[in-house]
């Protein structure tokens, strides 16, 4: 709402970085009127009249202009976004043209296929259904299981989603880079690896591998990967944080 900031000397700013916006501020109705002809000029003339009472109010307002400087939305940002969009859509179309989908035999309730699989992104969940060996047999129940293996697998989904949900409520603070928090990066790698190994477990019939070994690896690999991540980041951390902190202190010297 810069209506009469034609005098650039007394533009109020938020005392920012001293970077001043280029001289193309939002023009006033009067300026717009003077730039145009015909009916649009008439429109502006009318609006100028109709608005003159608001103008004085606005002139008295204490709106603070903010200093900004970066790429213009048009054409820079828009062209870049359009380019990205066409690239991505092109990628999808290329994939669909080169790898068209297959359709299997029609549904037949009387013959169970040898391999039943969901789409790849549900493999991890499918793998959780095969955790029967981990379902504890309780001595008080006389070696009975507390719940069916199926129920156990379905509930495991809830545990995983729950674990993901609580992350932002546990890990707070301003650290962003994995090196700043090796522990949480390790937790993340644990999760990624677990999702991957569970997916492998879900297709165990197709894996050229001993099933028991695969089952063990499903739960051994994630902690190993997490430990490696932690060790590597912890080692990197000292030098890296030194550099990062030095830059920070140069920017905002400690008081």
């Amino acid at each position, binding site marked *: *709402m810069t209506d009469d900031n034609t005098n650039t000397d007394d533009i109020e700013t938020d005392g920012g970085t001293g970077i001043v*916006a280029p001289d193309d501020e939002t023009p006033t109705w009067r300026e717009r009127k003077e730039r145009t002809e015909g*009916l649009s000029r*008439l*429109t502006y003339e*009318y*609006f100028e*009249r*109709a*608005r*003159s009472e608001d103008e004085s109010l606005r002139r008295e307002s204490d709106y603070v202009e*903010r200093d*900004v400087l970066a790429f*213009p*939305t048009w054409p820079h*940002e828009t062209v870049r976004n359009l380019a*990205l*969009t066409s690239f*991505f*859509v092109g*990628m*999808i179309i290329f*994939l*669909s*043209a080169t*790898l*068209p*989908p297959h*359709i*299997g035999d*029609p*549904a037949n309730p009387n013959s169970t*296929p040898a391999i*039943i699989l*969901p789409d790849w*992104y*549900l493999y991890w969940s499918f793998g959780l*259904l095969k955790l029967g060996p981990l379902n504890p047999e309780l001595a008080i129940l006389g070696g009975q299981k507390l719940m*069916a293996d*199926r*129920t156990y*697998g*379905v509930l495991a989904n809830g545990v995983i*989603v729950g674990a*993901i*949900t609580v*992350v*932002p*409520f546990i*890990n*707070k*603070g*301003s650290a*962003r*880079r994995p090196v700043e928090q090796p522990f*949480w*990066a390790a937790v*993340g790698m644990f999760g*990624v690896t677990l999702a991957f190994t569970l997916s492998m477990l879900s297709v165990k019939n197709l894996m050229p591998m001993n099933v028991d070994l695969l089952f063990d690896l499903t739960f051994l690999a994630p902690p190993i990967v997490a430990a490696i991540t932690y060790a590597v980041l912890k080692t990197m951390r000292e030098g890296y944080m030194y550099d990062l902190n030095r*830059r920070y202190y140069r920017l905002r010297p400690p008081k």
Partner: protein
Amino acid sequence: MSLEKKDEYDHKNWLESKDLTPVEATFLTALIWVDKRLRIVDYLELLESLYYRSNLQMPKSHTEQYDLDNKFWYWYALYTLGFFSTLAYVVAAISGALLGFYYVPAVGSAGPGEASIAYSQIAFIMRDLQFGFMLRSIHRWSAQVMTAAVFLHMLRVYFTGAYKEPRELNWLLGIVLISLTMVFGYSGYLLPWDQLAFWAGQIGVEMSLSIPLIGEWVAQLLFGGFSLSQATLQRMYILHVFLLPFVVTTLIAIHIGIVWVQGIAEPH
């Protein structure tokens, strides 16, 4: 001087004093008439300001402004995954709407010994329909790409700590969205009613039956019974083409709106 109350902004008088052509006079009269009732000047000004503002400049990003890390652009590609999944969602929506013109969610077969109508409609789309094979291919691949992009997007958000303090709600919303994406995928997977669809549906029914306490209720709600039937396909269809599109589109809008309001969390 008349005794009539005179408006300070006596537009009529102003009009008469202006010596306008008939076109101009008609236009202005109409404009004033509408503006007096709807105050379009406000909206026009808003639009015009937006137009001029769009030529103003966006703030420099944190990293650019403080020259924090000249290697930061390595990670820019990962910051477009959210946009990419939205885009794949749009592509899937368009191709899905076109597929919807031809698909029929019916388990029964047209004649004895034939496949179900749902299956034969898919076969029709793939074999006989002009561009149908490509259409189904595009729909399927955009769905796959969306899911993959959503997963990677989540990893990016995790490993750059973008889920932290002011952004917990968007993280929760993201979890809901990724789950709904998978439900989208699952319900779409069942629609062709081929062998894989049928038996994946079977597993779905069994999984919902295994949920303690509410299992049977969930199975009846989602699958329309304890075994697969017309009701199952019908429900998956409505879920896939009606319910989920509304819900997911709304949630995506809120998700992006929150990102807009809070800004993108950059590493620093």
